[in-house]
């Protein structure tokens, strides 16, 4: 039910993002989803990749600070109110969303949203009860 996301610390200077993606490309690692959060001084790149152990290893070898976080990937119905219903259920359960990012599947009709919760197990519980489809890690890595 949980997906492993890797995160990379980046200083705000030109070319750093290109270097990360270059390192991954050189090792034949495929990026499934990504989001970049930034401040005036630094950024945090969050990635879901097909081979996370290898990705971590090559990024570290190249001098990046890499972290690992568990996130949840869910399928959101592609219609008005699809996301609102899910967030409403989470709010009812007192769960905070730290951040989220979305991407659309190649074939599917539904969007996939990656969530980082303050309380992941509680969140999964609520989502399951609400009948939301949660993607398994393997499904996401292989997308």
């Amino acid at each position: 039910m949980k997906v492993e996301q890797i995160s990379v610390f980046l200083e705000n200077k030109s070319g750093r993002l290109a270097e990360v993606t270059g390192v991954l490309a050189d090792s034949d690692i495929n990026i499934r989803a990504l989001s970049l959060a930034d401040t005036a001084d630094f950024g945090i790149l969050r990635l879901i990749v097909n081979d996370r152990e290898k990705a971590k290893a090559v990024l570290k070898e190249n001098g990046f600070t890499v972290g690992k976080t568990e996130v949840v990937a869910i399928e959101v119905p592609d219609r008005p109110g699809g996301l609102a219903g899910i967030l409403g259920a989470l709010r009812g359960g007192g769960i905070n969303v730290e951040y989220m990012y979305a991407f659309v599947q190649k074939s599917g009709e539904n969007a996939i949203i990656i969530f980082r919760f303050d309380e992941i197990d509680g969140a999964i519980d609520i989502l399951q009860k609400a009948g939301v489809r949660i993607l398994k890690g393997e499904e996401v890595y292989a997308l």
Partner: protein
Amino acid sequence: MIWNEEFETLPREALEALQIKRLKALVERVYTTVPFYRRQMDGAGMRPDQIQGLDDLKRLPFTTKENLRENYPFGLFTVPLERVIRIHASSGTTGKPTVVGYTRRDIETWAELMARTLACGGTRQGDVVHNAYGYGLFTGGLGAHYGAEKIGATVIPMSGGNTKRQIMIMQDFGSTVLLCTPSYALNLAEVIADMGIDVAELKLRVGIFGAEPWSEKMREEIEKKMLISALDIYGLSEVIGPGVASECIEGKKGLHVFEDHFIAEVIDPDTGDVLPHGEMGELVFTTITKEAFPVIRYRTSDITTLIPDACVCGRGFIRMERVSGRTDDMLIIRGVNVFPSQIEHVLMGIEGVEPHYQIMVDRDGALDIMEVHVEVNEEIFSDEIKELERLSRRIGGEIKDMLGVSCNVKLVEPRTIQRSEGKAKRVIDNRKI
């Protein structure tokens, strides 16, 4: 204008006779009252009665900031604490400050020396002295304050900061003498211009600036922008505070050391040998009249040279050139002494933070800006922005608590701070003074 005609114009021979008499008494006193000095002298095989002439001074061991730290807080006081009526402190090289104490007579001596210093700039009764040196543990504010009161001037105890209010008071109270750091004077000049005030309408006549290094170029700039005479003064809390040496308005070339209270030497910082006048080296002071906290051959880490030639003002005291650098890595940020080791100390106290850091100093207009770069390793890294921002705020807050100076903390990628063999390059100072 000379405050104390009798002492400030003593012929060299009489001055030296007075110095040796005071030096002998000092050495005898510290030997019998301060275990540290007794150990130092015993170690060097020196007895107090071997000090017969000024030439014998160089046989005594140096005192260093490290020695002060080892004897924290009161270990080098020669009198019991009940005779100490004031304590000041400046930043030490690590967590603990350097502590100095004053007896009633020391406070009087200090007021006399600051009166001389202010008189060097022509300050007299009737002047309105705008004292923007910081009040508190720092010696600048109170030191200058007592000297100005002794002269009988009207003192405004402004302390630092709150620039617009300073300028309003300058206008409304008719300040004639400005006391602050030279960079703050430039900052005041800029804000005066921004506020649309004509500087010619202020009554300021002279500025007596110290507590940080500056240059002739800065002097010209301040004089032009503020329409005042700008003078350089020198002091450090370990010796007494401000009032160790001062430029005179007549000469404006080198700072007169008040030699009836302090003996100045310039040494080779590597060998410790005393250098002849005119050669650049490390400035060393022996305080020959202080009671509570005298120092013998205290190494200031300031680099300068001594000028023995007579001065147009008539004072007989030797002059030191404007301080041109440091032998250690001390920085002066907005008038506050900052040692990189203090910042390291703060970083080491925060779990997970590695002691890989770099301090970038720059000047934005007239204000010093300090930025501390800290490498982000896996232990402190988070995938959440707010966690990293919390960390940088915490580092900045703890540095501010320790140093009293705010800084920007910048998180940087690992191994981006240059590692060097041996001593790491901790400081990049881009200020053009």
